[in-house]
């Protein structure tokens, strides 16, 4: 088990190196550099050239890459042009916000999706299953950003049950009960919107796996042992059906972190996704580079997490 995890961790190393290279090359291909447009146009080209030399911008690319990677490894992503502050400081709050949004979305996806999938699979082709399956088709067909707009309009503006922007009400003491409640209140609507659309894949996967598994021979074996139906579902069918969901868990998280971009924008939720869009529009390259690197990192870690979870639930995967 541990051998497998260590081996899997070693495999991520070259992935990380390739990712950082790609991000660096993309960044250096973008027009302009740290000095373009930041300086008084009246300064002589010689002075600029002097600065370039001093900042290492005339070095060969591999030395620049080395400098950049060293900085990144120490948590230094450079300066944001727009906010005039270190990217790391800028991202930290946003990351925390996105983390909570993703967490609450994942929570709702599994808290709602797994029971729906189980019900749908267990009573397949009954009315309840047809209702759930019908919902999943609708969910597949609905783009998340449209759905988010509609929920925002209905529950945010029409009914006024939820705040329509921000991550917390202003004027509250951080750490107080009201502050936490306000945070949760701000998270609920975007979280639910993401979950209600995001869960359809989980529901359909689980349903078809359960329908498949319940006809397997080992289920007949379990019945022949005299196991009651509830036990058959809990011990035999569910565990075997949940494998693809477990395998998908890591990717799900990645998708949430990177995929909440539109939702964060729509709800004016100050997360990484909203920051990403703003930074692209304002050509805040240092921030864009840092975010692309982080999203890539999230994808690699998500895959790693998926593999580890799968190896825990499925003994056949474990590498000797």
């Amino acid at each position, binding site marked *: 088990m541990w051998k497998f995890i260590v081996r899997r961790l070693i495999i991520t190393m070259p992935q990380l190196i390739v990712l950082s290279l790609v991000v660096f090359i993309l960044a250096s291909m973008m027009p302009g550099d740290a000095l373009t447009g930041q300086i008084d146009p009246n300064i002589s080209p010689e002075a600029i050239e002097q600065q370039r030399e001093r900042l290492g911008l005339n070095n060969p690319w591999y030395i620049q890459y080395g400098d950049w990677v060293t900085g990144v490894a120490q948590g230094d992503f450079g300066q944001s042009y727009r906010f005039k502050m270190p990217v790391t400081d800028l991202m930290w709050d946003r990351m925390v916000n996105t983390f909570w949004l993703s967490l609450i979305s994942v929570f709702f996806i599994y808290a709602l999706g797994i029971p729906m999938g189980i019900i749908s699979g267990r009573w397949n082709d009954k009315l309840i299953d047809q209702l759930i399956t019908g919902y999943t088709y609708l969910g597949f067909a609905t783009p998340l950003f449209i759905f988010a707009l509609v929920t925002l309009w209905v529950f945010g503006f029409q009914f006024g049950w939820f705040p329509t922007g921000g991550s917390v009400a202003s004027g509250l003491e951080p750490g107080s009960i009201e502050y936490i409640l306000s945070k949760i209140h701000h998270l609920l609507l975007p979280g639910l919107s993401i979950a209600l659309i995001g869960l359809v894949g989980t529901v359909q996967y689980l349903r078809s796996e359960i329908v498949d598994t319940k006809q397997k021979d080992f289920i007949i074996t379990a019945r022949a042992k005299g196991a009651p139906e509830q036990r058959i579902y809990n*011990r035999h069918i569910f565990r075997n059906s949940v494998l693809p969901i477990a395998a998908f868990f890591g990717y799900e998280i990645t998708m949430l972190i990177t995929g909440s971009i539109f939702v964060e924008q729509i709800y004016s939720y100050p997360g990484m996704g909203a920051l990403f869009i703003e930074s692209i529009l304002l050509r805040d390259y240092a921030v864009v580079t840092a975010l692309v690197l982080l999203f890539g990192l999230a994808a690699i870690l998500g895959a790693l997490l998926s593999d580890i979870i799968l190896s825990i639930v499925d003994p056949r995967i474990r590498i000797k």
Partner: protein
Amino acid sequence: MSKTLLEIKNLTTSFRIGEEYYAAVDDVSLNLQENEVLAIVGESGSGKSATAFSLMGLHNRAKIEGEILFKGRDIANLPTSKMNKIRGNEISMIFQDPLTALNPLMEIGKQIGEVLLLHKKDMSKQERRDYSIELLERVGLPRPERVVDQFPHELSGGMRQRVIIAIAIANKPELLIADEPTTALDVTIQAQILDLMRELKDDLNSGVILITHDLGVVAEMADRVAVMYAGQIVEIADVESLFVNPQHPYTRSLLSSVPATDFAQDRLHVIQGIVPSLKNLPREGCRFKERIPWIEDTAHEEDPQLHEISENHYVRCTCYQHFYFPEESKEEQTNGVTES
């Protein structure tokens, strides 16, 4: 005289296709004594597995009529909660394909332990584990204390079938139903598994219903044989009379379809056609009629019944008296019967 363990009276198992019910097992009556091995043979689709599944109450949406008297108690259509007390306990089953019959995500020990957990509530976890190891040893698995913590994919087909047998005998069942227990195994392993089953049967003094289409297995194991065709029993006899003196055209066709090792036969007999599907079963007259078209219609009974032609030897329909293989001429046929 041994006691009657199981008495099946007029068992009919029907499945719904569209709006109508079709009987896959049609009016089957059988009985089984303690420590007796009854083989049920027939082609695929003849209803032999459906009969076994009816006994275990494993059919999901089937209509079961008739009586299944197990130790005098009717267990047909027993509610699942009551049936669950019997299954895996007093009646247990060995399955055809050991590669798929075990849960791939559960340790062997837990899969054996489950049947103990369900029926022997007072056993502790440690006792279940110890007894599982004992059972694995009993069914001839090497290093049982290692196997108990392994997963099915780590074992070979023959070993897995031994595990399934261990599960089946865990609660010392009085009736063991083996549904093609050796079909998926290598020939060398088949013999070992059959030896093991016979040994266990004698140990436990239990009755065995052996479902198979392998006549070699029948000759090896069975005391009595019931031949099924299209949901009905067409012939039932002691194993010796059936092999020495087969009567029903279907039985004779089956027996002559088996390759002999003495090369005396240069061509194997092939039964014409296929077993009709459930929906297209002929419900009137002799069901085997279509597959022996060279026999005159008058040879068949209108409503074929089982006839006792000698002690404990029953044959359905009168066509057996007129049957001959198309390869032989009609005259040869009469000699053929008297010879055997």
